[in-house]
């Protein structure tokens, strides 16, 4: 991989971290409403996947979507403005934290009903197959989503129709507060794909280069031969959402995972492999921090949506009561 792309990946991971740390503060100040699910700890997953995709590859994810949003190139300004519910947000302030998308960048959303976007991902992939495009749909979901019927209906159909979809289970070890082994009959999630004869693999999601390299191979497989499931093991350092008392795990467990901070791992890798100097990486971190500050200023000074927006964008054709 070119050095520029590696450094850009590093920038993206740090930017996600900074933007979300800022979002947590703004949430505490009451400036962000609703739910806020932070991606902190999982940055290597979306960063590696997005780096591995081709422009024609679609990506769709669940509600923990700020990472993908920033990876695909939605500006920190538009992400922050959406979190603050402003007219300049990527979804015009109508979606919020869980519903960011940018169709121009082939990012088909943040979806908030657990598992419900898997059938939709099958349909996105069908769209490409129908037209003879070689695009692949990357569908990310949590470990919790593998216990709901949608997962099984979607995997089954994807195999029956040989749809070009890369199923990616981000296993962060807990569905809300319930550990995988307490909710799933099979705790090695990738084995569920065996039931649908879908080839599969489990990898370390704290190492962005492992995610990137495996995703490239998996995408090539899907392009040539149909669906593949990748289980990416990771960990969220923060609660499920803001206000999670975290009674289901102890501080030692969190600390143990934090020693494997994906940003720290990648930084060390870049230094050890002489891809960048410490000064270069420091400068990237400073730029991500500055861009985050700029995004906050932009979002805070952006206008609220006007009331006439209430009845817009509901139908394509004339809006009816």
């Amino acid at each position, binding site marked *: 991989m070119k050095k520029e792309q590696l450094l850009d990946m590093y920038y993206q991971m740090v930017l996600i971290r900074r933007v979300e740390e800022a979002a947590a503060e703004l949430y505490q100040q009451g400036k962000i409403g609703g739910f806020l699910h932070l991606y902190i700890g999982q940055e290597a997953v979306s960063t590696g996947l997005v780096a591995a995709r081709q422009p024609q590859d679609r990506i769709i994810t669940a509600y923990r979507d700020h990472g993908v949003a920033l990876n695909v190139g939605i500006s920190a300004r538009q992400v922050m403005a959406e979190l603050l519910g402003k007219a300049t947000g990527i979804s015009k302030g109508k979606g919020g934290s869980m519903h960011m998308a940018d169709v121009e960048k082939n990012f*088909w959303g943040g979806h908030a009903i657990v598992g419900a976007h898997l*059938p*939709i991902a099958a*349909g996105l992939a*069908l769209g490409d197959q129908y037209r003879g495009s070689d695009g692949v749909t990357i569908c990310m979901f949590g470990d919790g989503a593998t216990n709901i019927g949608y997962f099984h*209906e979607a995997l089954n*159909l994807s195999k029956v129709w040989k749809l070009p979809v890369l199923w990616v289970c981000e296993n962060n070890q807990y569905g809300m507060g319930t550990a995988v082994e307490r909710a799933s009959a099979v705790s090695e999630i990738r084995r569920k794909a065996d039931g649908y004869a879908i080839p599969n693999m489990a990898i370390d999601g704290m190492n962005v280069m492992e995610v990137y390299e495996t995703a490239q191979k998996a995408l090539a497989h899907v392009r040539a031969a149909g669906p593949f499931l990748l289980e990416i093991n990771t960990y969220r350092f923060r609660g499920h959402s803001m206000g999670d008392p975290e009674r289901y795990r102890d501080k030692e467990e969190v600390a143990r995972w934090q020693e494997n901070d994906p940003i720290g791992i990648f930084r060390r890798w870049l230094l050890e492999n002489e891809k960048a100097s410490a000064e270069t990486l420091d400068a990237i971190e400073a730029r991500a921090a500055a861009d985050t500050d700029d995004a906050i200023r932009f979002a805070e000074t952006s206008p609220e949506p006007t009331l006439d927006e209430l009845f817009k*964008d509901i139908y394509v054709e004339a809006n009816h009561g």
Partner: protein
Amino acid sequence: MAKITMRQAISQALWEEMERDENVFILGEEVGIWGGTYAVTKGFYDHFGEKRVRDTPIAEAVIVGAAIGAAMTGLRPIAEIMTINFAFSAMDHIVNEAAKMRAMFGGQMRVPMVIRTVSGGGRQLGATHSQTPDAVFAHFPGLKVVAPGTPYDAKGLLKAAIRSDDPVLFIEHATMYQVRGEVPEEEYLVPIGQSKIQRPGRDVTLAAYSKGLDLALKAAAQLAQEGIEAEVIDLRTLRPLDMQPIYQSLEKTNRLVVVEEGWKSYGVGAEIAARTQEEAFDLLDAPILRVAQKEVPLPYNSTLEQAALPQVVDVIAAVQEVLR
């Protein structure tokens, strides 16, 4: 003009739109090799092939979900849900995904999808296979809900639904596939969202749709023999609901009866009565009456089932009541 059945009208609409636009395709249970459980897509698989007439597993959530996704890429899927009772298995995708996809992302996406499904009782299929829950689906902004009562409207509305850039639930009635009506040879569309006078009259207004229209027209024919001229308004679309023809009719009749097959509580009649008293109270000379299904799960036994379903005599009795 040729008289054809409701089944033929729907089938023609699908065939013509598939011939017209490569992006239109059908997916659902038994739509292909079987030819459709109501035989609507008979012959389609052989003509259009398995790419465009796609048999699916019995898995309603992924049928509707995949249709939504394909529509988001610009295709025009027609998802067939064998009966509306099974649509509950896809309820999340219909109401949480299809109906909200555009609004939730600030207008970035469009879902030009049709869900064709079959509603209605009267065939002794028991409680889970006989429901008429059309009003449930009409509750949600973001969806369009169409339920024709004549072959002419079925053909024109289905073609309009397929060309619509918004998600449309297209509800057919299980006992009306053999209903015959005049359908022109030449191409036409019927716009979604317009109610229509199906029979003019001056004494009382009957607002109805789908099977209710059938009952209302039969009642009107009998009432005419007693010298009572009922004006029958066909809603045709439940969302968006066009009330204007009803108000125009009430200018003449000042009396309104609503006929629907679904349960009375929270139903289509409830909505029409509420809107009428909110928007046209001064036009009313009598309480609005609703003819609807009794509040029971439909039994298998035919006598009991028919006792629960609204009948022509119920419509006549309601008309006599509002004219008293």
